[in-house]
């Protein structure tokens, strides 16, 4: 045992606030105290805010807020399953529930609260439970197994959370509330009415103005709840969630000053009536107020840690009780003076009962300051409005614009984060200011992930996450993190600019473009980019001699270069539909040339290991059997994946294969800034995974839904819905326009997903251009695409019939020999490139 001369600090309670206190204490004065923590629960601090996610698969480990090495790292001692039994303030000792006596120099009470259970007869019956700890959740889950109907007593914030939990457990769910509306504290009548309707739509029955008198045996269920108005409700499980009460019994017994209705009285530095004892979180009473949210608790934790370390510069001056949450999928937010209790306060109200949106602003008498707000059904504005209220930012002339939906063409409303002062609190849970975010960005945390990790902003309730992103974006912009999108050192133009110059200037070759608009000799960046533009604009055969020097090796040999200098061959299999005869041809060709064969993700077959001199021979056989180039080697339209569709599938509503073939044959050979992948699904089950494609088509009863700019790969993006229920002709028309618009305006090697994400106006803008022809270029785009469709040629068919082109398909200019460095070994019955170490060094100059 080590004898310590350091002062002893005991923390009673290891919940969210207790853990925050320990982190703050360690940050303030790492080794100043010998710290002992008593935690009556069997596990260290976990996230109670997201407790209901426990029922949807989140594990206790994932809910944990205590880094596994926290106690080892700090040297603090955590005693799980051991609470405090008594405190002797005079002797400065504490007795634990295990009968141990600990002495302290400083004592911090973070005992939290307990769920209030109304004192009604029958409240202690079996299957009458509360909702606060993981153990409570386990009890609820066990009880739910023997229950069909579950009822929550209390329609407040926690009650609705609990109702969600019961719903998730598959119970028929009721909510019984004493007040006339749900969430009476946070929202008003109109908002409450909308919330109720939304929640009832989700299958939860809401009973308001019900005063439960007693709980007795039920006739059809475990219990019967008898109401004061004479009515009753049969239910199997009852969950009390009628508010919280401070866990103050320990403090009360030790003689500390208490509030009339409970709570341990604290001053502005979280000190109780005994100078050595502090109280923080939901057990503490400040100015006769108990704060039942985590953010004020975190603030108290920080202030107490500072006070104990001797820093009393920042007092606790109350906390903002604004809150935003998603209750059973319904966004609800409440800011500041939600009930317009401030004398002279005025309100703006926007209610859209059709869409299920209610918004209210409470402003000062001169309508210059935002005092509060209520948002139900849509709470995207929460972050902005909260900043207006917290920082008293002067409101513009028409405050109602802050809650009115944007009109077409209207400027983006709201508040630029640039306006916020550095002191503005962005994350109130973790008390992170804009200034703190900026410092973290300065320190190199320039991604959202890094910024969150460094500052903890947005990691508790997540309500401020969009705002954190806005601050990051604005700050990066302000720091001049702008990249010019010039093609390369040879062309001081973007790809879009080059596209325009080439088209308008009727430029037909790279040299011409270089002489007119560039400098130097070009490089491996600008040459293929210009080649792609020339192909998109003029559709001249990429094999033309004047274009040869600017084609990447894939386009030069019309095949995909592999790591060992061999190439792979991908015949087009439109829609993934192939006859057995054609399958046999591919098999025979693969066998004859000893190729490695693999099925691709795009529903075709890739044949690997072909040497340049073999390519025309292979393709001769494929073309003779009716195959065409699959353009797998190009920055071009690749494949249209499909599910089997209505011809065979019991669920299909349209012929997805037929449509996939139609689309693939239309856009085959199309050259573009980057590869383009498409898919068609025959019903909403989406077996073709169309929403991960550049263009995704999903059948509906009435036609086709068109999705765009999806991506799998490195940076997955779910496709955005462009238009719904299109007929065949309109579908093709819209795809024409969309693809051509992308080809015209995208950067080099920019997939449609990144293109859309970077496009000013985003999907709404594309919708206008494609579906409403807002730029008046739809006919032009369609005509351009039709021109490309009409001039399509199979590059391989052309190549194998042209003596001049065939000359390039040899390894040596002066010998018919093959490259001896290409060697294979066998694996799983097929070839693979021989490891460089195993190779003889033929061909490598000594």
């Amino acid at each position: 045992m080590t004898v310590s001369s350091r002062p002893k600090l005991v923390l009673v309670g290891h919940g969210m606030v207790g853990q925050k206190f320990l982190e703050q204490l360690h940050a303030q004065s790492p080794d100043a105290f010998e710290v002992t923590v008593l935690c009556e629960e069997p596990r260290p601090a976990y996230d109670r805010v997201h407790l209901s996610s426990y029922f949807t698969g989140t594990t206790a480990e994932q809910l944990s807020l205590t880094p596994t090495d926290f106690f080892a790292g700090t040297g603090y001692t955590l005693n799980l399953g051991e609470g405090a039994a008594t405190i002797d303030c005079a002797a400065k000792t504490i007795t634990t529930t295990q009968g141990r006596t600990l002495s302290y120099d400083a004592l911090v009470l973070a005992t939290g609260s307990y769920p209030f259970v109304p004192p009604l007869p029958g409240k202690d019956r079996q299957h009458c439970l509360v909702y606060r700890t993981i153990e409570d959740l386990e009890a609820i889950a066990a009880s739910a197994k023997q229950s069909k109907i579950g009822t929550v007593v209390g329609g407040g914030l926690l009650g609705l959370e609990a109702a969600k939990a019961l719903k998730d457990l598959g119970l028929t769910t009721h909510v019984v509330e004493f007040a006339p509306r749900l969430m009476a504290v946070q929202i008003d009548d109109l908002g409450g009415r909308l919330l109720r309707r939304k929640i009832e739509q989700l299958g939860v029955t809401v009973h308001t103005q019900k005063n439960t008198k007693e709980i007795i045996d039920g006739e059809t269920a475990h219990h019967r709840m008898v109401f004061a108005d004479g009515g009753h409700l049969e239910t199997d499980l009852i969950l009390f969630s009628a508010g919280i009460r401070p866990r103050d019994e320990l403090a009360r017994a030790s003689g500390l000053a208490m509030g009339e209705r409970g709570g341990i009285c604290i001053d502005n530095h979280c000190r109780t009536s005994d100078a050595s004892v502090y109280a923080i979180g939901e057990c503490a009473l400040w100015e006769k107020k108990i704060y039942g949210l985590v953010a004020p608790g975190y603030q108290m934790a920080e202030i107490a840690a500072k006070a104990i370390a001797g820093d009393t510069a920042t007092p606790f001056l109350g906390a903002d009780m604004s809150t935003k949450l998603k209750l059973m999928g319904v966004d609800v937010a409440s800011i500041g003076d939600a009930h317009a209790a401030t004398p002279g306060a005025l309100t703006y109200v926007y209610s859209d009962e059709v869409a299920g949106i209610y918004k209210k602003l409470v402003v000062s008498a001169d309508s210059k300051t935002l005092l509060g707000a209520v948002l139900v059904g849509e709470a995207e504005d929460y972050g902005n409005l909260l900043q207006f209220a917290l920082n008293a930012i002067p409101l513009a002339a028409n405050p109602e614009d802050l809650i009115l939906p944007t009109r077409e063409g209207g400027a983006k409303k709201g508040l630029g984060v640039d306006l916020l002062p550095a002191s503005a609190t962005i994350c109130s849970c973790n008390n992170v200011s804009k200034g703190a975010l900026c410092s973290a960005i300065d320190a190199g945390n320039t991604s959202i992930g890094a910024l969150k990790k460094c500052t903890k902003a947005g990691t508790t309730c997540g309500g401020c996450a969009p705002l954190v992103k806005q601050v990051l974006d604005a700050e990066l912009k302000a720091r001049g993190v702008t990249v010019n999108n010039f093609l390369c050192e040879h062309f001081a133009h973007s790809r879009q600019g080059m596209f325009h110059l080439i088209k308008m200037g009727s430029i037909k070759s790279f040299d011409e473009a270089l002489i007119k608009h560039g400098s130097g000799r070009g490089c491996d960046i600008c040459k293929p980019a210009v080649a792609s533009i020339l192909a998109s604009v003029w559709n001249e055969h990429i094999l033309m001699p004047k274009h040869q020097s600017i084609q990447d090796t894939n386009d030069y040999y019309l095949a995909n270069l592999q790591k060992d200098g061999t190439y792979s061959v991908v015949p087009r299999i439109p829609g993934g539909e192939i006859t057995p005869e054609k399958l046999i041809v591919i098999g025979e060709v693969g066998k004859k040339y000893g190729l490695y064969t693999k099925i691709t993700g795009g529903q075709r077959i890739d044949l690997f290991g072909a040497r340049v001199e073999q390519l025309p021979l292979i393709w001769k056989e494929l073309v003779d059997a009716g195959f065409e180039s699959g353009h797998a080697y190009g920055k071009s339209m690749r494949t249209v994946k499909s599910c089997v569709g209505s011809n065979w599938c019991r669920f299909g509503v349209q012929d997805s294969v037929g449509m996939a073939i139609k689309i693939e044959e239309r856009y085959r050979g199309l050259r573009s800034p980057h590869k383009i992948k498409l898919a068609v699904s025959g019903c909403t089950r989406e077996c073709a995974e169309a929403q991960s494609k550049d263009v995704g088509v999903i059948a509906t009863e009435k036609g086709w839904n068109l999705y765009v700019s999806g991506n799998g790969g490195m940076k997955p993006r779910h496709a955005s819905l462009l238009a719904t229920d299109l007929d065949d002709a309109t579908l093709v028309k819209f795809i024409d326009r969309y693809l051509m618009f992308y080809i015209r305006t995208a950067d080099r090697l920019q997939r449609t997903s990144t293109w859309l994400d970077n496009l000013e106006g985003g999907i709404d803008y594309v919708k206008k251009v494609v579906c409403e022809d807002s730029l008046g270029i739809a006919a032009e785009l369609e005509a351009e695409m039709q021109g490309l469709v009409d001039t399509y040629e199979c590059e391989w068919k052309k190549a194998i019939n042209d003596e001049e082109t065939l000359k390039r398909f040899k390894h040596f200019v002066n010998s018919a020999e093959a490259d001896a460095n290409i060697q294979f070994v066998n694996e799983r019955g097929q070839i693979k490139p021989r490891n460089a170490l195993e190779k003889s060094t033929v061909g490598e100059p000594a």
Partner: protein
Amino acid sequence: MTENAQWTHVCALTDILPNTGVCAKVGQAQVAVFRIVSPQGAEEGVFALGNFEPKSQANVLSRGLVGDLGGVSVVASPVYKNHYALTTGACLEEETLRVPVFAVRVVEGAVLVGAQQ
């Protein structure tokens, strides 16, 4: 290179399209020969480097795109896009990588490759 050096006739200059390369077999060596022509069409010379690209360990350099970076004439490896200076064989991105340079000249329309330099 001396006047006595062995010269191998590999192909006609016109067998190499402007601003592309070919691979020639010179003894047991594979040599990438590039023909550089200005955008206006003026011949600016032929260059010869080893065809073996050390980063990919494959005989592919003749299939790279030629151009210039910061005024240095280069060829880009078609595999990993690293660049080699046509005159020195030095890799611009990785100091440790280098390909051999071969003597090369055009005599009466014929491309002749000489010794490794």
